[in-house]
Every structure is written in structure tokens, then in C-alpha cells.
């Protein structure tokens, strides 16, 4: 998709609602990411012009915060907590099981068909439920590799339902 075919209606609506001010940069990026599940490159020159903030500056904000993604994310974003509590209660095997199941790695976080993204997060603040993971912001407590894969298989059925 190049900038001439990109539909800016969504961005325009967001800019209209939040206001084209530099102090709103983060809020605008969050709203755009909420819609697209990532920050498409095409939006940068566009909002730069509208906000009167340079593209490099907005890029700086987008790359500073871990929460912003410049890569398209899957329909299901799975975040495995690797904070201290989850880590000592064996979150890494959960992460590895999910990655293996989906053919993903630390560098490749999203499946080619844009269905699943697996990433780690430093702490979900749900230490009592360790090891925890979230799927599209819904918390799944006390994970084991087996439980995680079972949930994943369920999601896969849902995800590929339309295609079979």
C-alpha cells in the first residue's frame, strides 16, 4: 500500500477527535494503533503535516515506547508475561511452546498470515496469577505450556473457521 492509495479517513477522524497538537502525539498514535493494530508507515508524513511536528520527531516517540509497533500485528496478540514473578514460575517454557507451535521467534513475532503475534511483556501486574499471559488484553492465569497450546488450538479453530 503506498501513500496515494492509503485511506486517511480513520486518521482524519482521530485527529479531529483528539486535536492536532504536539502534546497529543502519544494519544493520536495510540488511537491509530488501536484501529490498525500497528502504526502504518503512511500515517507518519500525513500526521506530521497536520500536526506541524516533524516526521523524525513522531518516529522518535513511536520507537521510544515499547507499546507502539511499526510492524503489522496479528488478529490475536498474545503477550506472555516475563516479569520476575512469572519468570520464576516458568513463563519461558510457555513462551517457547507458543513460538514453536506457530513457527515464531524473538525476531519474527507475527505469523505471515497476520493471525497471531507472540511477544513478551515485562510485567502485567498480575503477579498473583503467575505465570500469566494476555490474549487481546484478556488475562489467562497460571499458564503451563500444555494449557497455552490448548488455548492456542481453540483460537486457531476460530481464526481459520471462515476459510474452511
Amino acid at each position, binding site marked *: 500500500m503506498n501513500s496515494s492509495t492509503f485511506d486517511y479517513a480513520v486518521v482524519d477522524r482521530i485527529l479531529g477527535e483528539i486535536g492536532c497538537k504536539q502534546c497529543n502525539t502519544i494519544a493520536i498514535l495510540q488511537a491509530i494503533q488501536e484501529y490498525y493494530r500497528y502504526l502504518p*508507515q503512511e500515517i*507518519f*508524513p500525513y500526521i*506530521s503535516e497536520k500536526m506541524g*511536528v*516533524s*516526521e*523524525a*520527531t*513522531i*518516529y*522518535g516517540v513511536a*520507537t*521510544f515506547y515499547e507499546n507502539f509497533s*511499526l510492524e503489522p500485528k496479528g488478529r490475536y496478540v498474545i503477550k506472555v508475561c516475563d516479569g520476575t514473578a512469572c519468570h520464576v514460575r516458568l513463563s519461558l517454557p510457555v513462551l517457547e511452546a507458543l513460538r514453536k507451535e506457530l513457527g515464531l521467534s524473538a525476531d519474527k513475532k507475527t505469523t505471515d498470515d497476520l493471525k497471531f503475534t507472540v511477544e513478551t511483556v515485562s510485567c502485567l501486574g498480575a503477579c498473583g496469577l503467575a505465570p500469566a499471559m494476555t490474549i487481546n488484553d484478556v488475562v489467562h492465569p497460571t499458564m503451563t505450556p500444555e494449557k497455552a497450546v490448548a488455548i492456542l488450538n481453540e483460537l486457531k479453530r476460530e481464526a481459520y473457521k471462515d476459510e474452511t
Partner: protein
Amino acid sequence: MENKEKNTITVDGIEVELDGERNLLEVIRKAGIDMPTFCYYPELSIYGACRMCVFEDEKGRIDSSCSTIPRAGMAVKTNTARLRRYRKDILELLLANHCRDCTTCEKNDSCKLREFAAKYGLTDVRFPNTKKEPEIDDSSACIVRDASKCILCGACVRVCSEIQNVGAIAFAKRSSKVTVSTAFGVPISRTNCIGCGQCAAYCPTGAITVRNDTQKVWDALADKDTYVTAQIAPAVRVAVSKEFGLEDGENVIGKICTALRYMGVDEVYDTTVGADMTVFEETEEFVRKLENGDKLPMFTSCCPGWIRFAEKNYPELLPQISTCRSPMQMLASALSKKLDKKCASEGKKHYHIAVMPCTAKKFEAKREEFAGMVDAVITTVELIKMIKQSGLMFDKIKPSDPDSVYGPSSGAGVIFGVTGGVTEAVIRKAANDSSDSALEEISYTGVRGLEGVKEACVKLSDREIKIAVVSGLANTSALLESIKEGKHYDLVEVMACPGGCICGGGQPHAEDDGTKNNRARGLYSSDERSVIRTSQQNKQVEELLSSFGGEKHHLLHVNYVK
């Protein structure tokens, strides 16, 4: 207590009077202490990143002086054993992941990191060298970036956004991965960079440098089949002396002419001749626009950084920018017409070098509108390098005059190098009165001084002409917004670099107002000493212009409107 009543601070036992300094660092420097800094510049926002300017207070607490508000009664120390150790540690840590090939670095002779390492007696770096591979972006005609030599002081980022309102580069990523980057890391030539080179002038290390075109020039000079001519811009002549131990701001145009001839340049010209041509053409254009009732203000067109800025950000203003080529391009046109065919008939190639205070001129020379006119642009910094390489003892050589087929150029042309100069030169021409009293009157209209925005009002044949003189592109943006909101001017002079060409990106960086003022003074006093001070007194240029006949517009004007 005693100090509190007296409104003073004690720095290393020296009592210093407070006078509204914005931070402790300024007070310490006022005490005569040469406090080291990488990231601090008075005209930029305070960033507090490098921590070299640390001080110790009465209780032994250590903090950075650039980000400390001065309070009456403070007693601080800047040179304790702890502070010396801290500074050395900082330098060691900076060097731990920094390239140490100083001998082959472009910034070798002006690198602050190298300078401080020597100054603070760094004899060893305890940490293994984890320097990154060079990450070179040489896509720009003006500057070269190497992110691996960056110490993250942020001066380039701040000058680009705060002073120039461009923001082509910014900090990207975080923590150990932080880097100064364009959006998405694209080559700088594909961004909104205008090539003003201020980032290179501020960069304390070799991370951003002015593109070095000196070898190209040496090659042309060594080629027997090449006839080499050169022109020297106004601002260059007052920015060379300090590097050779001469008086700061001294006009050394004569020595530069001698040096260039010694290196093998066949004809040496003064760009002020081009400036005189510009004055003729631009005044005529301005008066015509006034009489025709064309849309005003008319903007000046000498500064290639401004042209680029307008093209990228204010394309709607392009029709209001004077169609006059810059003085560099006007003189290059005249020389090309005079020499290209003549040289070809003798089996030689005419090669034209422009010595400029400006990195954006490198881009201007490469524009398709001017292709083949100027073969190489070297900045003042590059000229200084070439003089050093030539082996000449610059302080000892005898001055010589520039070639003078176009007459002794006017003082009006000389002051093009400082903000307000173009305007003053145009007013002198338009007022058409070359008497000393008339010139003095013009000099007091408010066009002089290094302020970023100046306004003046002059009377031209019963009409009040409202003028704005602006330098620095952030100031320019603000002025353009006020014009959009209805403020009226007839003529607006824009120079991209704050202070005008004397503070251009290709000049040795003027770290304090002292040097800037010395350079401005150098130009104004040269103007005062000039035999002729208005462009209309330059009869040779007038004859030259009429000799162009119908070709004149084609040779001296350009249309940037696409």
C-alpha cells in the same frame, strides 16, 4: 550569608556577581573557568546529557551546572579531585564504544571528544572497545553522517528543530539502542533536510561533518588541461583569520586571493561582484513589483537553505520569491559566458570553484537549473584545510587583490554576508543616494544587528516601505505565520542561518556571540573602507549587465516555481 546579601556566588573562591544568568554554568564561565561541555549551547534548550559541566557544592553534592539555577550565596567548586575523576570517567565511558581512529577522522582538528581527552589527561581507556561499525549516510550533497561516532549530545537534534524548525533528525529508540535518526532511518536526502549544515557545525564529534570536496578541487588544480577560476563569498573573509592566529573577524580576502593563486587558481573573483549584480536586478524587480501592485512581500532569493525550506514547506510562496539567482550563481553565469568558449577554443576546460560559508550552496550548485556553472563548492572550513595542506604560512603571506574585470566591487556587496546586508544594499540602490549621510541614515533604520527578526521602515519616493529581516528558519516560520494572519511587509530578507552567512554551516563554528559580532564588524568596517559603497557606483557591473542585452534574464534569473 554574606554572599546572599551581595547577590553573588563564590566559584572556586572567586566571588562572581549575579546578573540574570540562566544557569550556574554561565556564572562559572563568567568567573573565568573554562567549564567543558559537549551538549550545552546558550542558544539551544538545556539538555543536561553530557555531565561534563559537573560542580560540587558546599555539602559535597555533585550536579551538572548547566541545569542548575544560580542562587545568591552558593559556594561551588569546579576542580576537585572527585570532579576531575568524574570527568575522566565520563570521557572513558564515551570512548568505550567510540571509534578511536582520530588520525583519519574528518573532524580530527575540531573534535571536542579528542580535545577533552587530551585536555583532561586521558592516557588509557579501561574498557574494551565496543565501537560499532561505521553507519555512513552520504546521500546529501551537503553533509555526511556517521551514527557510529555519535555521543548522543543532541545538539544536532536541537538546532535542527529549535533554531531551524526543520526536525529532519530526532532521537529514535531508547536506552542502549538510542540513536539520532531520520524517520524510519531513511537517507537524509529523502527527508525535509534543507542542507543548512548547522547540525555539522554544532556536532562536537565526527558524527555529522560537512561533505569534503577538497580532493575534487585539488584534482582540478593539478590537471593541466583545466583552467580554474574561483570566487570567494563575503562571509568567508572574516571567518578564516582566527584559525591562523590572526585577529578574530579580520578581513583577510587579500590573503585568501594569494593563497588560491598559490594553489594554482588562474583567476580569483570576489562574489561581492555577483552581489552587486543581484542588487541591480533585485532592486529593479522590487521597484517593478511595487509599481505594478504585484503581491507583496517580495522575498529575497540569495539563501539556498531558505529556497529549499520554502520549496518543501511553503510552495505557495515561491511566486513571491525574487527570481534573481544568488550572487554565486550570477557571477558563475557571467564567468561561464566569458570563459567557457574561450577555454574550449584553447583545448581547456573551464572549472569554477566557489568558496562559500554555506553547505547548502553545495546543493544549489547541483540543482538542474544551474547545472555546469559551479563545478565545486568548498566551505570556509574546507578552504582552511586546503590552505593548511598547501603548506602556506597564511599569517605571513602578502595580500593580493581579486581579479577586477568587473571593477572594484562595492561595500554593499560585502555586507551580503551578514543578516540585513542584502536589504541594506537594496535600499542603498533604491534610494539612489551614495552620499555618506544618506548611507549612515540607512544603517540606522534597524536592518543591522544579529537579532533573529528585525523590522525597518524606509521612504522610497514618498512611499513607506515596510521591511522585515529574518534569520534562522524557526524565526522565519513564525514571521510567515504572522504574514498569513495579515501582517504586511513589502520586502522580506530571509537567511536560513541565525545571524546570516557569517554563521553559516560551512564556517568554523562560532560558539559565542563574541566571534559572531567580530565577523559582523569585520564586514561592516570593510564596507566603510570601500572606495565605493553602493552597487550603482560599480560602473563595470552596470556595463556588464547591459552587455548581456536580451540574454540578461536567462543568465541571471531563475524560476523555482514548478
